[in-house]
Every structure is written in structure tokens, then in C-alpha cells.
């Protein structure tokens, strides 16, 4: 019996299938999960999640959340989950830069809501870029 991985976001169930192994960004560092793992609940850092299914590796960008691991199941709850193929690096890069620039530019006369929106957008872009970049450097 293999491991069942489900990745759930508030908007949708992003992924649910049998996989061979999962590597996820846990509370203190990366956490590799195989079948018959000890039941564990831990926080998830925004970063990269990798799972292996019949020899193929799939990389996803995940936001903050938590993960619940039982012997045969891995339930990931994150506020964001995007497959690597879906990330367009230059677009994300551009979004990140414009958000950072906007945040620095006007400085004091930003309304609080603008700052909050920009920070959220920056965090999202960073998580996506992290996945893209890391993959290439390996």
C-alpha cells in the first residue's frame, strides 16, 4: 500500500492521489515522508513541496499552512498551491519587482490597505520564485 497525498487550499482541492514519497517544507527544515511514517502534525513553511510518483518528480509551490501525516496519508493544508509548470518566472519576477518598488517608492503616504495588499503579493511571488530557482540550480 502506498501513500495518499492530498493538498487542500481554501479555494480547491489542489491534488489528491497515491504517491511514492513526499518532501515538504516542515517546521524546522525539509521533511521527507515515506509510507508508514509516524503520525505527525507540523506547521508548513512557505516553500517547495516535491512528490514522487512512479519515478516522476513533481514540484509545487506551497504557502503557509500545516500538514497532517498518518501511516498511509499525507494531508497538506496550505493557503496556496501552484504546480511548477504553472509558474511563469518572468511574470512573477515582474510582479515582485513592481510590488517591492511600489512599497519603497512612496514610503510614508501609503494607505495601510495598500501596504497589506503589496506585502501579500510579495510573499506569494517569493514562494513561487523559490521553487523555480531551486529547481534550476540543482
Amino acid at each position, binding site marked *: 500500500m502506498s501513500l495518499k497525498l*492530498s493538498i*487542500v*487550499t*481554501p*479555494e*480547491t*482541492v489542489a491534488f*489528491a492521489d497515491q504517491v511514492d514519497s513526499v518532501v515538504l517544507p*516542515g*517546521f*524546522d527544515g525539509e521533511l521527507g515522508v515515506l509510507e508508514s511514517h*509516524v*503520525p*505527525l*502534525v*507540523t*506547521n508548513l513553511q512557505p516553500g517547495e513541496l516535491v512528490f514522487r510518483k512512479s519515478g516522476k518528480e513533481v514540484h509545487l509551490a506551497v504557502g*503557509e*499552512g*500545516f500538514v*497532517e501525516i*498518518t501511516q498511509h*496519508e499525507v*494531508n497538506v*493544508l496550505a*493557503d*496556496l498551491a501552484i504546480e511548477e509548470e504553472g509558474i511563469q518566472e518572468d511574470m512573477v519576477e515582474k510582479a515582485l519587482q513592481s510590488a517591492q518598488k511600489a512599497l519603497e517608492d512612496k514610503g510614508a503616504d501609503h*494607505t*495601510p*490597505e495598500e501596504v*497589506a*495588499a503589496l*506585502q*501579500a*503579493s510579495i510573499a*506569494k511571488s517569493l514562494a513561487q520564485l523559490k521553487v523555480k530557482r531551486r529547481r534550476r540550480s540543482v
Partner: protein
Amino acid sequence: MANLRDLRRRIKSVKNTAQITKAMQLVAASKMKRAQDQAVSGRPYAEALNKVLNKLKTRAEDLEHPLLEQREGERELLLVVNTDKGLCGGLNTNLLRKTLSEAGPETRFVTVGTKLRTTLARLKKDLQADFQIKDPVQFSDAKAVARFVTDQYLEGQVDRVRVAFTNFVSTLTQVPVVETLLPISPLALGKPKDFDMAATRPAPVDAADKFVTGGDYSYLYEPDPASVLVALLPQYINYTFYQMVLEARASEHSSRMVAMKNATDNAKQLIKDLTLEYNKARQAAITSELLEIATAQMAIS
């Protein structure tokens, strides 16, 4: 004769209006469906979150955290989730009435949506910020708002955060409500919300089964139950607020749909009345013309 032309013109313009309202009605109907579906597709997340929160709650009793602490003060932040566009019946009016009846003199306001922002500004209320949440609702948008109010709360700017929004009961009924977002009541933690429209529907089978893992494992918590719970609290807030926004959106669209349906019906009735009048006037014109011809002929012979 001029009368006939006027009538024709009016009929045409009412017909155009009816076409527009009919189109808006259909658009609102599909948007309402989408908002409802969105709430339902968030259900697995809510269930998993609630399950873990429930387990953690028993493991981490007597937890003290600023987000859980009931404060004495009277300073309150009221987050008003209203609409960006009008033409949705009495939705915003009802929400405003509820909001004002709940608000004290010290209350600060944060709005989502432009309609009540202008109204509250005109009433000279203490407006702190205004957010825009696009349609369809993105979780990241809701998160930005939730994080903003959480920060305000943690900085000690306010002692309480409540949210005024319109609860979607059914297509015909939407009720304005004010719910407490912060501090989190430990009792309510991990329970389904009573305003949750998804909870009242029968769950799709696979989604419901997904997280009901058999048996109560003795989980390991990394680093420990209390820290995991503390890290989960902001996410709980984000999700709760996201749900409220979805409720408000579904209400907006269903209310607009009903308003537009009434408008279309009224326009149709008006067209009917005007057509009747038009035909009467036309016949009267024909009759009088005939009479003229007949009279002229009699005078000659």
C-alpha cells in the same frame, strides 16, 4: 399623430431597458452559483482545519495567546463587507442599518467595497482603511484584509474586531449580521460556523470522507501542540474571514438577481400597457380619418 410617435419611442426605450436588466439578471445568477460553489469547494479545507484544531485544543489547554485573550476595552473595529456596485436591492441599506445599530461612538471602520465606504465617509465615521476584493473572491485578497485587522488587533490599536456582512440564507433571503472575528472564542474554535452556507448542504461524499481518518492516532506534534496551535490561529482567522466574504458575495449576487428580475417584470408590464395605449391611439386616428372622408363625401354629394 405626434402622440403616436412619442409612444413608439417610449416603447422602444423600455424594451431596451428590459433587455439590459434581463442580461444583468442572468449574469448575477451565474455569479451567485459560482460564489456558492466556491464556498462548497472550500469545505475539505474547513473540515481538516477544524479537525486538527479540535485535537490541538484538548492537547493545549490553558493556552494563553493574545488572539485568544478577551480584552476589557471598548475600542472596536468594525469590518464592513459591502458591495462595489449598486442595483442590488436593499442589500447595502439593510447592512448599513445593522452596522450603525451595532456600532458605538468609539467604533472604527474598515470597509470592503465602495458603496458603504462613501456612505460611511459622508456620515463622518472614523474610516481606517478600505479594501477591494475582486470577483470571484481570491483567498489571497481576503488574507490581506484579515492580516491587516489582525495586526491592528495585536498592536493594541483595538480591543475587538467584528465583521458586518450579509449572510446568505437562500436566494430570496439575505440577513445582515455582525460576527466577532477577534478575539477568537476558544469555544467556537474548531466548530462549523452557523453562518456557513456550505455546512447546511449535504457534503459531497468524497470530500467528506477525505479527512475522516479512522481511529484517533496519538500524533506527534512538531515542535509541540501549543506552537502548532498558535501558528494555526492566523490561518483560522484568514479562513473565517474568507468564508464571510463568500457569504457576502453570494448575497450580493442573489439580491441583484432578484432586483433585476423585478425590474424586467416591471418593464414587461409597462411595455404591455404602452402597446395597448399605442394601439388605441392608432385606431382612434384611423376612425377619425374615416370620419373625415365620409363627411367630406357627404358634403359633396
